[in-house]
């Protein structure tokens, strides 16, 4: 079975937010709801400074803290490794938001549940890629199967020594970043 993941090259990200808008479009979100965020980090002082855009979304952790703490067991992992939510079981206690170290879960006030990025698994199962990956004008994002050593994703991670964010938090995230 495939184990899907993402790789993001922040050296190419220009902070256009197209991935954020595409995601909102794909999932029918409100203007003030989002499943991914573009964080900014500035280092150094003029004239030697660097401005970095870092897109962040659910890492679909293999050891997801949100899944561990959900009291209604509404959070489950699909066979492809996507961390997902049963919308009819979630009661909106928001414990998963407090538990997520990356703070990438949001409350959907229309349905009263907590949702997040689900890697557009319906598009993927039909042979496509997540909306954020397809939309990016700079091809910052790489989507693929982590278990396949010949996939573009695995090659990208190996070639650029991409690392997940805060691997020390021991959640085993599945989004890898090339940041330099």
């Amino acid at each position, binding site marked *: 079975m495939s184990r899907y993941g993402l790789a993001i090259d922040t050296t190419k990200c220009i902070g256009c937010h197209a991935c954020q808008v595409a995601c909102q479009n794909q999932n029918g979100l409100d203007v003030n709801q989002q499943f991914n965020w573009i964080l900014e980090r500035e280092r150094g002082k003029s004239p030697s400074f660097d401005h970095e855009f870092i897109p962040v979304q659910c890492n679909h952790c293999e050891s997801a803290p949100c899944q561990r703490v959900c009291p209604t067991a509404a959070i489950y992992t699909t066979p492809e490794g996507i961390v997902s939510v049963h919308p009819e079981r979630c009661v909106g206690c928001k414990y998963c938001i407090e538990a997520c170290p990356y703070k990438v879960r949001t409350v959907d006030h229309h349905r*009263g549940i907590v949702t997040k990025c689900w890697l557009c698994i319906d598009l993927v199962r039909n042979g496509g890629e997540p909306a954020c990956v397809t939309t990016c004008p700079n091809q910052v994002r790489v989507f693929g199967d982590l278990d396949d050593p010949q996939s573009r994703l695995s090659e990208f991670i190996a070639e650029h020594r991409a690392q997940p964010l805060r691997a020390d938090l021991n959640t085993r995230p599945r989004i890898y970043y090339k940041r330099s």
Partner: protein
Amino acid sequence: MVENAWGWLIVTYLFLAGAGAGAFVAAVACDLLAPDWSKTLAQAGSLAAGPLVAVGTVCLVLDLEAGLWQPWRQIYLVSNLSSGITWGVIVLSLFIPVAFLYAAALNEITAVGRYLKKYVWHLEVVGSLLAVSTAAYTGILIAVVNGVPFWNTPLMPVLFMASAMSTGLAVAMIGAAIIDITTIRTLSNFALGHIIFLAVEALVLILFVFMSLTRSVEAAISANMLISGVLSPYFWVLVVILGILVPFALSFVEYYEYGAMPKYLVVGADLLVLVGGMSLRALIILSASPPQVV
């Protein structure tokens, strides 16, 4: 990034449940250790515990989203024994009825109460275990996740339990004053209880804040918010001065001048302890900051 999803409803629940659990323990302690002269306090504690935790639980349910609009979803809440909330639901479902039954039994209210009078000791044992679990589980719940480094320490349940016992005693004393204002003289004995509980709470709070300053960057950010940052007026005025130091001083005076203090100062000291307890819970929840991921 949604940094903090828990607001005033959760803070109110933490405060009310802690105070209710503490009031129960205070009532049991009075009934077992000093049944003759502390009867009013035992009565008050037992009568306040159930309603307090019940109102707190209502606040908890009101904070749910889909679980409030479609209440039948709440049946799922006990599905995951790895989750602190599941344990909390189990503990609260047991503690609230036991607390009400204990109030009925100890004070012989209604036929059920009169029947249960002979089982008071059993209710005290079971209820105390449930009360301590109630006071502790909320601390454990927020301590086991690394999503908020400020909360991720074993000192968190200790702090919550110390605060619960302290506010519980204060509630029991206020209740005793309501039942019979002339018991204020006897309540002076409990000044020693206040001194001890407030000292323990102060010590745990100092430890917690100091350890937070060195534990991790994000914990230090939150701790600094409390000590010298945006939340510092609330921390120093509401939690430290009004919530701990002033009641401590008043209790000291009360203890040594047995019964000579004006009644309003005794009750006032209890109210200040409650203000401090609520402010402490609010500041802990509101100052949460996530790990720095980039």
